[in-house]
Structure formats: structure tokens, C-alpha cells
């Protein structure tokens, strides 16, 4: 839903780094987005293609690395990945403990760009 505004943000970051690096064209944009984000990659790519027209990022390929939603178990201190949309209520897979808490899954950044 908010992919347009997010894509504007991505393009701004990409163009700034491309200019600083003296790039004439951006070939690939690699993003790292946590599993807690609802962003649709298909729409990110479409909006990027549209917003990037006429810039050095025109035609760049968008690659999204989805990082997992990770929880830590309080009692046994081990971490594990969870797909929240299918998990329902999830105890620790190692010890069955229910005292688990979120560790990561909110990453939201441009990792690197490939340029010529």
C-alpha cells in the first residue's frame, strides 16, 4: 500500500550514493527488508521502474533479501525463525518454552548498489 512512498525513499538513497560514487548508471539495487514488513516486491519493482525513468537508476534491477523474523527463547536462550503469518502460537522449538521475544525482523535498508 505504501510502496510508492517507500520506493521514493529508496530512489533518493540510491541516487545520492550513485552520484557520490561517480556512477553513470545503476545496474542493481540490493535491499535488505525484514520479514515484519508487508512490502510487496512486485510493486516496489514497478514503482522503481516508473520513478527511476530519466535518472541514472533507470532500468536498474531490484533485488530484495528478506531477513527472517527471529525470536529468542527466555528459558533456554536459543534463537529461532518464525513465519508469523502461519505460525499461530509458537513455543520455542527446542525446549517448548513459551517465554519468547522478538529479536529481529525490522531491517529496512539499501544494502548495496552495482553501478557502472
Amino acid at each position, binding site marked *: *500500500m505504501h510502496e510508492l512512498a517507500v520506493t521514493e*525513499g529508496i530512489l533518493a*538513497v540510491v541516487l545520492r550514493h550513485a552520484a557520490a560514487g561517480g556512477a553513470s548508471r545503476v545496474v542493481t539495487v540490493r535491499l535488505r527488508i525484514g520479514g515484519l514488513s508487508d512490502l510487496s516486491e512486485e510493486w516496489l519493482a514497478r514503482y522503481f521502474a516508473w520513478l527511476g525513468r530519466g535518472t541514472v537508476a533507470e532500468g536498474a534491477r531490484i533485488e530484495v533479501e528478506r531477513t527472517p523474523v527471529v525470536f529468542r527463547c527466555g528459558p533456554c536462550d536459543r534463537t529461532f525463525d518464525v513465519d508469523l503469518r502461519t505460525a499461530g502460537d509458537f513455543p520455542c522449538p527446542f525446549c517448548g518454552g513459551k517465554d519468547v521475544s522478538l529479536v529481529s525482523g*525490522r531491517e*529496512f535498508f539499501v544494502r548495496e548498489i*552495482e553501478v557502472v
Partner: protein
Amino acid sequence: MENIRLIEVREEILSDNRDVAREIRETLRRKGVFLLNLMSSPGAGKTSLLIRTLRALRDAFRIAVIEGDIDSMVDAEKAAAEGVPAVQIRTGSACHLDAPMVEKALGELDLDRTDLVLMENVGNLVCPAEFDTGDTRKAMILSVPEGDDKPLKYPLMFSICHAVVVNKTDCFPMFDFDLDVFRERVRKLNPGAEIFPLSCKTGEGMDRWIAWLEKAIAESRSR
């Protein structure tokens, strides 16, 4: 053959928004203004909670209201009818408030004569979670008819809020909402979040919410 170079970026996607949000937070801190960002899905009771909160705190604080809406003035008119300054942000196509929009709206208020700004975000549990608005605290409302499974479906929203209001508790008998299960689901995502079951209709539970907000305002001033 062109040589492809790799540029390491490692920068947040919404860094522009984050920078503006930081500026807003700093300005508000300096002026002693508390900005509450209130989020929920449409119909969960943002405007009702806002009006109830306004009435409970208007004698203690100088309050203003910011209303975010896609394209209407209805909510701002309700707030203005309460006799407090109200600014409507019409976001057009945007499904959330972002920091530049909030900065502009704050510019229309007299912050030197304001203690508390109650801000109603656009009704939506997805997009507002991604955009920092420069708020002092984030609160969300989930209403009983929406169901206790929502932390599993909108985990980002539940993971960022300082307070989670469960509204329409007067409807409990009609729905299979398990408050204990809900508390456990929120706690996993966000152990620091406080949960406030209440009914804007009957007023039940409002006092705990108001006490939390008063305490949060006091804490923000002492920093």
C-alpha cells in the same frame, strides 16, 4: 565490456523521513510539547478515544489536534467542535502520515502555547508503522470485533507501539476475543508495550489509559 562496481550503501530506506522525524522530536522536546501518534484500522475508535482523552485532559493541558485523513475534514471538525485548535492533514493518495506532513501541520499550531498534541494517523495497520512521525509516543487501538489474532497479521505495528488500547470491551460477550491470548501475542513482539482494555462508549477502563498518558507526559518533560 563495462566494469560493474559495487557501492556499499547500508543506509535506511526512509532516511529522509527519519531525519525530519528527528528534527521534529528535538523541536518538541525543546518546546515541551508531547506528540501522541494514534494509529489503528478504520473504525477501531481513534476519533472516539481522541475526543474522550481530550475531555479528560483539557483542564490539565493545553491541547491541540492533528487529524490525518485521505480526503475529508470530518474528524478535524469534530475536534474543532470541542474548542481546541485542530489541523487536518489530507494525505491524498498516501495511506499514512510521514514526518514532512507532520512538520507542516505542527507549523500551523502555536507550539509555545501547546502542551499536548493528539494526532490521529490514517486508518490502517500497515503503512503508518513504517513511517516515523517524530512523535513522543506511539499508541495503537485494536477493537474487540477485529479479533485477538491481529498481532500475528500486523506484527510490525504491534512491535513499535508504546501502548496498545483494546477498545469496545463492552462487546466482549459477543466475540471470541481472548484477552490473555492477545496479551501473550503482544508481549512476544513487544515486551515493553502496555495494554489498556477499555470502552470509549461506556468509559470503562479509561482512567488507566489517561493515567498512563499523564505519566508519559510528565516523564517526557523531566528529560
